[in-house]
């Protein structure tokens, strides 16, 4: 067997690798494609445009201008108050949504474990074909959950490892060879 630690690059080889370009841009259309895909997924929003009142352009007399200014400033103040309130409500809702989402994950996770427990009990006595179908369904759910975890934490090696091992198993089964799997990858 070779001592693989002794396999060193020659100076010319090292130079050849160093000469390979480390930077290159893909086609220019890709940027628009990525931005468009991010917008569709709701990950990028429209830019906010601030409108300013052009007071000096209002072609009315002083009294009318003062009246309009008073009205407009009251309106603007009211909108600001409303917006502040709305922003606070949105913030509260977002916090609530995150808490609800976390609770929902916990509830469904417990339901999943409970269903697996029932499957474990039934596997000794039930029809083997039905048990196999239930196991397949359970693995599918586990795979989808791992897939979502990878989406949430793309650089997390643990989630990626779980997904990888599940994928290896799926690829080895005849069902995947027949194209029965319908999980959408991200």
């Amino acid at each position, binding site marked *: 067997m*070779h001592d*693989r*630690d002794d*396999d060193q*690059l*020659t100076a*010319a*080889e090292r*130079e*050849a*690798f160093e*000469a*390979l*370009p*480390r*930077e*290159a*841009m*893909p*086609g220019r259309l*890709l*940027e628009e*494609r*990525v*931005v468009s*895909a*991010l*917008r569709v*997924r*709701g*990950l*990028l*929003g*429209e*830019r906010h445009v601030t409108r300013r009142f052009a007071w000096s352009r209002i072609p009315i007399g002083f009294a009318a201008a003062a009246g309009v200014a008073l009205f407009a400033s009251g309106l603007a103040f009211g909108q600001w108050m409303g917006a502040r309130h709305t922003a606070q409500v949105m913030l509260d809702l977002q916090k609530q949504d995150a808490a609800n989402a976390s609770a929902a994950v916990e509830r469904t996770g417990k339901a999943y474990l409970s269903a697996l427990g029932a499957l474990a009990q039934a596997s000794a006595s039930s029809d083997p074909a039905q048990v196999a179908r239930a196991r397949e369904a359970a693995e599918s759910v586990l795979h989808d959950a791992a897939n979502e975890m*990878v*989406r*949430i*934490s*793309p*650089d997390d*090696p643990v989630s*990626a*490892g779980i997904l*990888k091992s599940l*994928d290896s198993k799926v*690829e080895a089964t005849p069902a995947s060879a027949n194209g029965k799997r319908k999980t959408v*990858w*991200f």
Partner: protein
Amino acid sequence: MTPDRALVEAVAHDGDETAFRELYRRHTSRLYPLVLRIVGGAEMDAEDVVQEAWMRAVAGMSRFRGDSSFSTWLCAIGLNAARDHLRRRGKWNATEDVTEMEIAAPPTSHGQRMDLERAIAALPPGCRTVLVLHDVEGFTHEEIARRLGIAVGTSKSQLFAARRAARTLLGGNKEMTHARP
């Protein structure tokens, strides 16, 4: 110049498109060649993977803590996306048997010597990835093992096999050289 960290926060919190475009233009030129080499030189596949990497990065941007540079973080996501891409096509096997390795040499013009870039593209995906990460990107075997979820010894074996195969592709046991444009 606005720091990456500020741009990341603008994208993560406000979905700021201008900030995203700035990040894209700063870091895609680093991500693209890495991904292109790992997928074996297929430009359309590499663009799909770059798009997927950015999608994952933006979705997870609020969790970027700045422990590493944004570029390093993005390239790690790109590596995972490229690996998933190869896996979906049934081409990924990080622990492939390197002694039984089949090398699909791309065609070269009559009399033309194979370029190092083409030789890398012709390697099997698993050992190609290790070679790219080690010899091109400068990762250590420990880093490669952690990133790919393989043993350090496997990384060394894959690198040994990849170099041997690349030398063969480039003409017997001659040294690997890069044809400069």
